[in-house]
């Protein structure tokens, strides 16, 4: 057979290592029987009937699994502190408040394999001695919410949730809590406040949620993808998992590929895979023969990575070393047509809108930074603005209360570091090299003009003049840079720069 017919034959899938996404696209997520058929709930049985709480924690520790929500905290260590915490009641929370723009790893797991999360939460509860769990999921994910509820009901029916699970006397229950769309509620303490019925705002650490979390009880909070790795780890053993990945970071990570890339979608790769391999071999490179410029990892909290770092091996430390972060797994590719100042402005604008306003550096500082960026993109920047951005960014990072503020300056700081020339072009030459920032654009009619007059007709502000069959001219002072003339020109005589 010459032609490839199956997804399994495609490089896109072949170069992946699917653990968290193992069942996604293979089983019917609304039928527990299919999950069981693909080894579902065996890990829970093994945990309860063979390993015991300490055994489970030892396995998770030995696996080397680290938090997939972005911070990369060792999961086993977190669970042990939950196990050791004193309390008559403990909680397990699954953070499914996936909010990074362009990220949909968790949604895919919840929609495609909800039982894996439920099984993992039950294992975690058994390990630390919790009796109650919550999944905090965004209301914007209605399909995930529906399938989770179906899965919870089915797990109850078969005795994988409820009282006396596997006849052990251990009981556990899970409830859903819907988030109303605030990005900051993905932060552990804001999330907990939201479940408690309070306004979703972070509070200082310590105390850590492991000791004083939900209703001040010991609480272990993990991300969806972290949980999805647990059943395979328990089932196949820590050694199996620890053999995958890099020295310091074991296992795999799911990324949502987006932006200027041929194969947008979800990929799961062993940690330590070079960035270049993900973007070019798996992602198929940049469309339309355009040149790669940068890749943004970690969403609005991450940084932009330039070409010279394409060979970096993806793991928590390496990405941090070059001014970005693993984050939850958003990966947005940019090409030569993207203006890096505009990209930084876009992500910062997101953080400004989502800042809860509790602490001053994040509330006021990010707004000031955004103001400076807007000044630069509208052609009114001065060179000292760049230093102000750097200084302000560093202060916000150092003094904000929670992760949102601590990371919000990253897109600006990383682009300032790697694409300073673009900032300088905006400030000194008053040009946008990528041709994105409208205020800095100038539309010009070249000698290719045939004098047809179409541009003149479409121009909404009548700033184009010229006689029939003669070269036309745009009056830059009246031009509103809408681009209508360029689109309408039949001979591509109008350029912007």
């Amino acid at each position, binding site marked *: 057979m010459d*032609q*490839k*017919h*199956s*997804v*399994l*034959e*495609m*490089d*896109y*899938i072949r170069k*992946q290592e699917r653990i968290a*996404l193992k*069942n*996604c*696209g*293979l*089983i*019917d*997520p*609304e039928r*527990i*029987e*299919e999950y*069981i*058929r693909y*080894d579902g*709930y*065996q890990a829970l*049985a*093994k945990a309860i*009937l063979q390993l015991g709480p300490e055994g489970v924690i030892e396995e998770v520790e030995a696996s080397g699994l680290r938090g997939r929500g972005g911070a990369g905290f060792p999961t086993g260590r977190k669970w042990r502190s939950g196990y050791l915490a004193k309390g008559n009641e403990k909680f397990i929370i699954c953070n499914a408040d996936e909010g990074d723009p362009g990220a*949909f790893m968790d*949604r*895919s797991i919840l*929609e*495609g*394999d909800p039982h894996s999360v439920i099984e993992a939460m039950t294992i975690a509860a058994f390990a630390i001695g919790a009796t109650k769990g919550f999944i905090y999921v965004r209301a914007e*994910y209605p*399909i*995930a919410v529906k399938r989770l509820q179906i899965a919870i009901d089915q797990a109850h*029916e*078969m*005795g*994988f949730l*409820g009282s*006396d699970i*596997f*006849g052990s006397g251990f009981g556990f229950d899970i409830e859903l809590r819907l988030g109303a769309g605030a990005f900051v509620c993905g932060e552990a303490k804001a999330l907990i406040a939201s479940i408690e019925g309070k306004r979703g705002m972070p509070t200082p650490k310590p105390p850590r949620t492991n000791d004083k979390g939900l209703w001040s009880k010991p609480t272990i909070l993990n991300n969806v993808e972290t949980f999805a790795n647990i059943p395979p780890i328990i089932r196949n053993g820590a050694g199996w998992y620890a053999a995958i990945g890099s020295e310091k970071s074991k296992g795999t990570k799911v990324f949502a590929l987006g932006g200027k890339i041929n*194969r*947008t*979608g*979800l*990929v*799961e790769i062993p940690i330590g895979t070079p960035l270049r391999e993900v973007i070019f071999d798996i992602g*198929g490179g940049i469309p339309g023969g355009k040149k790669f410029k940068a890749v943004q990892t970690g969403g609005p909290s991450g940084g932009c990575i330039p070409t010279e770092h394409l060979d970096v091996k993806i793991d928590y430390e390496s990405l941090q070393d070059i001014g970005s972060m693993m984050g939850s797994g958003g990966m947005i590719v940019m090409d030569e047509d993207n203006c890096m100042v505009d990209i930084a402005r876009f992500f910062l604008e997101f953080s400004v809108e989502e800042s809860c306003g509790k602490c001053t550096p994040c509330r006021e500082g990010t707004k000031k930074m955004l103001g400076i960026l807007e000044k630069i993109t509208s052609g009114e920047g001065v060179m000292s603005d760049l230093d102000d951005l750097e200084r302000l960014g560093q202060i916000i990072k150092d003094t904000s209360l929670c992760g949102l503020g601590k990371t919000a300056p990253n897109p600006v700081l990383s682009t300032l570091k790697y694409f300073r020339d673009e900032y300088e072009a905006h400030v000194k030459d008053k040009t946008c090299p990528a041709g994105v920032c409208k205020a800095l654009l100038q539309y010009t009619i070249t000698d290719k003009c045939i004098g047809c007059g179409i541009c003149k007709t479409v121009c909404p502000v009548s700033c184009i003049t010229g006689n029939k069959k003669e070269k036309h001219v745009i009056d830059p002072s009246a031009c509103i840079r809408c681009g209508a003339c360029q689109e309408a020109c039949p001979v591509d005589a109008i350029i912007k720069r």
Partner: protein
Amino acid sequence: MTGGLAVKSFEELMALKERIGREEATDEIKIMVGMATCGISAGAKPVMKALMAFVEEQGLKQVKVKQTGCIGICRLEPMFEIFEPGGERTTYVDMTPEKAVEVLEAHLLHHHVIEKYTIGAYD
């Protein structure tokens, strides 16, 4: 099928897994339709309806049309995969209800793969 009985041991779980496997007919052909957010927003629901209607009309008892999650190729949704008893797996992408019926007619009734609709033709 589970009878509402709680599973109480590893053996019971494994027996259940076996039973679920056995309940699948040996000549069963499975059609898995990508029905995650990406698939549905690209139009997977009408595609799935068309598939089910075709299977019903033709009385293809051994063919089961099921929903599944996202396999990660969101850009080529709606898509579905046909799993055959011999282990053959064919991935049809960028589907519409009309194309879906065309595919089933060729694939199920005439054992013919429509190459131009498979993932290989797109990637």
